[in-house]
């Protein structure tokens, strides 16, 4: 019995976005990463293309964070004490891009300064040839101060600056405009908010091929279904031709999953949770792999083992 397979006739396409600039484009990166270009939902090769595979960013910090799971400490070891070493280790662990995130305070509890931001960005840029994504600590004023400094220091490198949020996007977008960078536009799990922020950003003249949408996700067990569905909806809207949703998506399953008690805590938890290390990596893996299936173009992870496994998944997927 011949079965006619129904195929979607999407009219839209995900925009191509390139991170990082090599010497030819005025930067110093040895590798660039291009994401986007998809003409159907992820990996449905029977009806469309996915010219660029989803990629993995590894999150490193400007200094060893105090509140990360000890399992991550074991995985990265001494490298965590220096952002340059950490960036090198992340590159070796298979990162396609380095996500440098600043802590809210230095070891003495003081807020990081613009000079510190510059020095750290410089160090990371020297340590790795990968594209770099720079995230502030998440406080508007401090983010602006650090990101403007980072933008200056990395001028021409096509960094990604984040997080742009509806309450605080203007300075970051301006810094991206002034120094030729990209932005990571984060909204709280809502299709219309994501669109609205993109409209605001384009209104400031930053072209959409320099915008990554970050629709926010929850971790497995902590609201992943919202992130999962919002990404699915955004991608469907993009394919239906809604221009303001056609940016590639970046999400942070690593950060979310490693906040969960399941990954953070090894003692005093139910036996039914199973082996700590296995479970913790699983938490990140399940969160990340499901988001890759729902449309993520960049997933930001923390543990080298999950990086390895998500890479294997993406490679298997792309082999079609």
């Amino acid at each position: 019995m011949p079965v006619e397979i129904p195929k979607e006739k999407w009219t839209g396409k995900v925009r191509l976005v390139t991170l990082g600039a090599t010497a030819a484009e005025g930067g110093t990166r040895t590798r660039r990463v291009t994401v986007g270009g998809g003409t159907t939902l992820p990996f449905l090769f029977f009806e469309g293309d996915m010219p660029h595979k989803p990629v993995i960013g590894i999150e490193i910090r400007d200094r060893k964070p105090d509140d990360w799971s000890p399992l991550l400490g074991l995985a990265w070891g001494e490298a965590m004490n220096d952002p340059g070493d950490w960036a090198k280790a992340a590159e070796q662990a298979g990162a396609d891009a380095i996500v440098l995130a600043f802590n809210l305070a230095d070891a003495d509890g003081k807020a990081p300064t613009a000079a510190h931001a510059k020095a750290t960005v410089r160090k990371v840029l020297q340590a790795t040839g990968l594209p770099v994504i720079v995230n502030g600590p998440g406080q508007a004023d401090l983010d602006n101060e650090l990101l403007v400094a980072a933008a200056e220091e990395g001028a021409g490198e096509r960094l990604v600056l984040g997080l742009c949020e509806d309450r605080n996007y203007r300075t970051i977008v301006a810094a991206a405009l002034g120094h030729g960078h990209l932005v990571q536009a984060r909204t709280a799990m809502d299709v219309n908010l994501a669109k609205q922020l993109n409209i605001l950003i384009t209104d400031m003249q930053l072209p959409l091929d320099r915008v990554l949408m970050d629709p926010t996700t929850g971790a497995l067990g902590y609201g992943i279904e919202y992130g999962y569905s919002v990404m699915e909806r955004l991608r469907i809207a993009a394919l239906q031709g809604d221009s303001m949703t056609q940016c590639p998506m970046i999400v942070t399953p690593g950060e979310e999953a490693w906040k969960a008690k399941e990954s953070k805590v090894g003692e005093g938890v139910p036996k039914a949770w199973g082996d700590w290390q296995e479970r913790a990596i699983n938490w990140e893996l399940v969160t990340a792999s499901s988001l890759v299936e729902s449309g993520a173009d960049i997933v930001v992870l923390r543990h080298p083992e999950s990086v390895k496994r998500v890479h294997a998944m993406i490679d298997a997927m792309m082999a079609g």
Partner: protein
Amino acid sequence: MALSGIEIYKLLPGGLKPPHPKANCKECGFPTCLAFAMKLAAKQAELASCQYVSEEAQEKLAAAAAPPIRLIKVSSNGHEVAAGNETVMYRHEKTFFHPAGVFVRINDSDGLDAIRELVSTADEYKVNYVGMDLAVDGFAIKSTGDAATFSAGVEAVRGATKRPLILISADAAVMEAGLKAAGDSKSLICGASPENWEAMAALAKSHKAPLTVGGSTLDEMAELTDKIKAAGVEDMVLNPVVTTLPEALGVWTQLRRLALRKTFRPLGYPIIAFPSQFSADSQIAAVQAIAKYAGFIVLDRFNPADLYPLLVFRQNIYTDPQKPIQVSPGLYEINNPGPDSPVMVTTNFSITYFSVSNEVEGSGRKGWLLVADAEGMSVLTAWAAGKFDAERIAKTVKSTGIESKVNHRRLTIPGHVAVLSGELEDELPGWEIKVGPREAVNLPQYLKLME
């Protein structure tokens, strides 16, 4: 074109002119014929619930009402796993209704003692997630080819669990032995292929058991389900041969689309997935199976560290987007609070609860968290809907006995509902109402300042 509730209503007893004597009889479980009609239109009710519909009306309605993916149940001893009856491609369109059954696979050659031990451990496995107990749904037993071994293996499994079974063998004689050993439970026969379908269909028919139908192409499977249906078997589960992650994703997506978009009956059945068959990383494969349409999932091994995340993931994906997961209202202790620890209140929407409790827990500070019954809504939504008002918060304070646990009377409410503070002071005489931050992420800072 689906019928609207009103069009359906016109065919029901209450909508006839003049009305049928049984108009609004409530026997269907709905208060009026109109309410029932609207539920039918939303595919949330079965026409069979009404005994008074005329035959003519039944014909008109049945075409519109038959679910595009047949509901298949396997059961035993009061346990039941149902798959099918799904209505959407994406969960945000409505919801996914029947969570994929998760089965653990045993080989009949593993040795009876080992089988018994593994099965009873897995059978007892239970993990709590937001107040729900998650467990394995059943077991699959795979034959290595010998009927007696299979029979003994099934018996051993049957002795160790009451849960439903999936019996795996390509040999009808072996399968028959297994079915016999499984007793009167309704097991899933796995299964029919183009080579053995006649004998398998006969077994399915005589045991009134659902049957998986294998095939390497959709054409082949569609042909086979038609033949098996003609042989008198209605309950089938599709078992397409897939060898890679993207192939599985593609085939499953096509099957779901054919059923939902084309109402293609020959492939309108749930899907069974064997994650280890199409990926070296069976955890990732199982995640894909849960998200992308499998009705039954057979895992190769029982490992709590794999299983717990998978069961939670299934729970998450199958949450009704319009009816969020709730946590039980009440008093939650964070980091062993004492009598002078701060008291905070939030709603029982699970994500809200988790964000708040995670932030407080992560901050290392102690605290009492009161969770009010806000019908599972987030703070702002619940406030707007009148489900998180001064009265409800006061009730939570009084009913949880927090007053006897702390030596102060300071209650922190979410910043988004600052407007409740005055009213709340009226409702809770003696309490001082503090307005906390709007977002949970700012709680650690707030708690630090409070000290």
